């Protein structure tokens, strides 16, 4: 069983080719790093896998579900964290999380416990009833991570998740990923090769929209 299957994926923005015939397979379980310089196509790949963008050629499948043909099935299985928190500033952390849980059809009473538990894990429980616009970037990011894992996704898509996080917040997030590395699949993009290498089991390197290299993290030579 594969978590992500990508076959001859091509995506253009106007005349610029962001991804060119990319094919790769991510197995179930473990942390997989997606390395690449700016403009290599990492975020485009993440957006296609998370159904936010449609490919011009080829396909992406998540746990066997096509991202274009069966987007709702794919969305139930993924949790995406990007560089920008997807929170409403005028709502409190709890209201944000309850709103998103209602979109995932989760039971409200149980969710509230899950919200408390996850907020506690990420160290933001005492901020649950404050509007998120007054929170620091790091705390907003922590709430955003809670949002992304609220529905207990099988696949975590983390696109530059450590951007804007201080050392403590980064460590909290790393601990969370470590605690799930056996029962969940994580696809991670980061500019920080050190953190990426430390956290990951496998790697894929993209350059100018094409796969440059891939394999176990021990074989990563630091070239992107």
């Amino acid at each position, binding site marked *: 069983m594969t978590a992500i299957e990508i076959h001859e994926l091509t995506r253009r923005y106007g005349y610029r080719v962001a991804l060119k015939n990319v094919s790769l397979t991510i197995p179930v379980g473990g942390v997989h790093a997606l390395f690449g310089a700016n403009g290599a196509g990492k975020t485009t790949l993440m957006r296609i896998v*998370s*159904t*936010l*963008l*449609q490919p011009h050629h080829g396909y992406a499948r998540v746990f066997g579900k096509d991202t274009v043909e069966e987007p*709702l*099935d794919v*969305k*139930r299985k*993924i949790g*995406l964290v*990007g560089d*920008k*928190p*997807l*929170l*409403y*500033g*005028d*709502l409190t952390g709890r*209201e944000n999380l309850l*709103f*998103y849980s*209602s*979109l*995932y*059809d989760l039971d409200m009473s149980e969710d509230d416990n899950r919200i408390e538990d996850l907020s506690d894990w990420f160290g933001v429980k005492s901020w649950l009833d404050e509007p998120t616009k007054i929170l620091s970037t790091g705390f907003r990011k922590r709430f955003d991570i809670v*949002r992304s894992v609220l529905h207990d996704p099988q696949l975590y898509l983390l696109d530059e998740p450590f951007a804007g996080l201080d050392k403590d917040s980064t460590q909290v997030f790393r601990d969370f990923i470590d605690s799930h590395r056996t029962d969940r699949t994580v696809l991670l993009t980061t500019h920080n090769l050190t953190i990426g290498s430390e956290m990951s089991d496998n790697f894929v390197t993209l350059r100018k929209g094409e796969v440059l290299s891939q394999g176990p993290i021990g074989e990563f030579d630091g070239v992107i």
Partner: protein
Amino acid sequence: MGSGLSSAFAIAKKDIVTQMRKRFEVFSMFLFALIAVFALGIVLSSAVIQVAESATRIRVLAEIGSGMLWVVIFFAGMFGFAPVFISESETGTLRGLSLAPIPAWAIYIGKVIYGFVLMAIVELFLVPISMALLGYTFSSNISPLIVVGTFCLGTLDLAAVGAMASALTMPAESKATVYPLVYFPAATSGLILLVEITKIFAIGIPLVGPGLFQLLQLIMGHLVAMMTLSGAVFHFTLTS
């Protein structure tokens, strides 16, 4: 379907709660509407007062007043409807909605419901104020239920067009220019019907032209067409 509708209501509720906290759009809409009605009331009363015959004066006030009312609602709607998708796109939260396992039309319907509630709050105050200032009343021959129903239908129609115009404007560089270019032509046909219907409310059933229920059928058809079309193509605005 059930899940899509409950998600639409959740999105609308979220937007209403947010709006009640910041009150920016609803305040802008109400203030614009109030100033416009005041200005029009002054101009109208001084112009129509020259008409000697009382019956003619009342008819002229009713005809112009009912038209002015929807023009004010139409423009006030721009303040409320334009940001429904544009602000979510700019803050990035639209991505959060796009990632949720709900059909794209549920997001669109949620925004239409929100736009409707926002405009309805403004109309609740605006309609009686405009009637008092512009000097017209609705005919006692028309059931109040039909009047309220028509205003609901018309407001929903404008909200449906306004939300789609906002969605189509998201990728544009100069949003302030593009939004009216999309909103105006799409909403004008519904607006003309609403003016005609409200004129009937104000002066009674007309002797010539289409009757009230024919016009109501037309505005209902316009609403269904707008919502069906927008709901069917809305997902392109999220993935393009």
